[in-house]
């Protein structure tokens, strides 16, 4: 099995190629551009399509076109570009089209800067565009998972005919770690039962998100909600580290969770029973699993590089039954081990 030192952004394209992605449509933005560079380098070489769009809006609508034809398509960007894509994402969800989006989050709002942040949580996990839709959201915390979760995203996008997002950050995109290459490539089947791809049998198919009749649209929305409920039932993924006996549980995803793992180890050396709960899927959010921990009586610290966005989902998951504190940084700064430890020690002191 091949192992190589790879940049996080490059691992995305490796995952996409193994997942049988046919077409990449994209537009450059720091810190996500290497995804585009690698797509331009490797896709044409093996007969797949790479198109550099003139804007993120064009890129997401190329995704709409490619997905409508039943192909395995993707795009990537960072905060400002993801914002610009939101209209298209809502339409993709509304037309029930499978596709993969990668968001390498940077600091906002506005142009912000190119440092890492996790401030796109709300716009990506809660929908972002208009209407009653959800994205499937996967949150890697290593270069390995950047690759693996891109593959997983294609699988889920097609299983549920829904946009799937790989939500990473500037650090994960730019950092280099060893990557164990996938053992097997997916051999994609083009499903023509719903797609429109210029063949006789797909001629009657229709791709749209318009329902002029109010009740019909309501019924369609109910169908979408049932699909999301099914996703919540079947696709939750998370990682627990020493939560069994923990009095304090850190809840963290992405690069922040790596720092939390160190905090857990350090706290335990100091005799404080701390654990880490890492959601690997942000939608569906592992609510029941967190509730089970809360029922054991622990308190929580949501550790995230934002103004506190995931913390809302943690509070909702446990019905606010236990205290949930926030440790955060913004503006492109990483959370420090000291910062997490200070909060842990404070909570341990109070207990």
């Amino acid at each position, binding site marked *: 099995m091949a192992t190589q030192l790879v940049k996080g952004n490059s691992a995305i394209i490796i995952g996409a190629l193994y997942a049988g992605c046919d077409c990449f449509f994209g537009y450059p933005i720091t810190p996500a551009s290497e995804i585009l560079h690698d797509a331009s380098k490797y896709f044409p070489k093996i007969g797949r399509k790479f198109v550099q769009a*003139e804007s993120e*809006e064009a890129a997401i609508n190329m995704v709409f076109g490619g997905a409508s034809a039943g192909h395995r398509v993707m795009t990537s960007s960072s905060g400002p570009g993801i914002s610009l894509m939101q209209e298209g994402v809502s339409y993709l969800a509304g037309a029930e089209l499978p596709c993969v989006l990668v968001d390498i989050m940077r600091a906002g709002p506005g142009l912000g800067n190119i440092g890492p942040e996790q401030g796109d949580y709300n716009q990506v996990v809660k929908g972002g565009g208009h209407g009653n839709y959800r994205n499937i959201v996967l949150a890697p915390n290593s270069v390995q998972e950047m690759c693996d979760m891109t593959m997983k995203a294609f699988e889920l996008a097609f299983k549920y005919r829904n946009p799937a997002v790989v939500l990473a950050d500037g650090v994960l995109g730019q950092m280099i770690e060893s990557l164990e290459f996938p053992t097997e490539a997916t051999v994609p089947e083009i499903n023509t039962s719903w797609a429109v791809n210029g063949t006789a049998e797909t001629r009657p198919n229709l791709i749209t998100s318009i329902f002029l009749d109010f009740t019909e649209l309501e019924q369609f929305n109910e169908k979408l909600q049932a699909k999301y409920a099914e996703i919540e039932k079947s696709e939750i993924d998370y990682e627990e580290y020493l939560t069994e006996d923990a009095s304090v549980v850190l809840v963290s995803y992405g690069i922040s969770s790596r720092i939390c793992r160190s905090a857990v180890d350090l706290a335990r050396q100091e005799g404080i029973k701390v654990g880490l709960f890492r959601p690997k899927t942000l939608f569906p959010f592992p609510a029941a699993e967190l509730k089970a921990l809360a029922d054991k009586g622990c308190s929580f610290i949501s550790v995230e590089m934002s103004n506190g966005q995931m913390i809302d989902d943690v509070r909702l998951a446990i019905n606010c039954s236990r205290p949930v504190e926030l440790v955060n940084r913004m503006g492109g700064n990483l959370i420090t081990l000291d910062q997490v430890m200070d909060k842990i020690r404070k909570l341990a002191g109070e207990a």
Partner: protein
Amino acid sequence: MSKPAPKTYLAPGHRGCAGCCDALAAKFMLMGTGPNTIVVNPTGCLEVMTTPFPESAWKVPWIHSLFENGGAVASGVEAALKALGRKEGIKVIGVGGDGSTMDIGIRSLSGAFERGHDITYVCVDNEAYMNTGIQRSSGTPFDASTTTSPPGKISFGNPRPKKNMPAIMVAHGSPYVATTSIGYPRDMIKKVKKATEIEGPAYIHAHAPCPTGWGFDGSKTIEMAKLAVETCLWPMYEMENGELTQVKKVKNPKPVEEYLRAQKRFKHLFTMDGGDEEIKKIQATADWNIEFYGLQ
């Protein structure tokens, strides 16, 4: 014999690379506009390197918003000034790169020109997205190597010719469209001044060689800009109300090879099999320019 240069309103000490084309373009642009100017600057190298918060190199009011909306923001500024009765004597200038002008920003620029706002828009065209790592734009010339148009087995680099943006702006019925180059400061200053004095939406397209993105020494920016004009790959002209009214003549055009050889982005044309044929195609573009614009 020469007159002193007009005052500019871009301070030194910005964060541009050595030999930065955007800094030169902004400097010359402001020499043409004078101080009573409001600058609207969409995202790009110029915006990033002149305004690392809380600093600014601009000695005139300056607005940045998004990447795709320079034309719209300039329209808003102009309309607000008119509503306040304060437009008289104030110049509203949009300035963006090839990406924010020709690609992501073309829709809002088109809207501004079609509605006929009294603005001047300056495109500083360095022929790729330098701010995000040298990806191709629709201003990237044929066969240039960029990070998203790498030459290799299946291509010689960017497979498409440069978009004729000035022609698109002429088609909007703009009263004044001119091309210029940062290699010819007097020409650029004169054209920007003229553009701001004409009522209605005027467009200046300034060719701007980027040492970092094109791969040449930072001391050669002006030289490279001149070579583009001297090889007739960058024709300099004015069009007023759709008519070609002035052209910079090039008496003895140099072969395009001289221009291409000096830049790393075209290096592969001299090392790859079939490169000769590609250079001939680029020479044909220069020859077409000579014929079409009457450069000789």
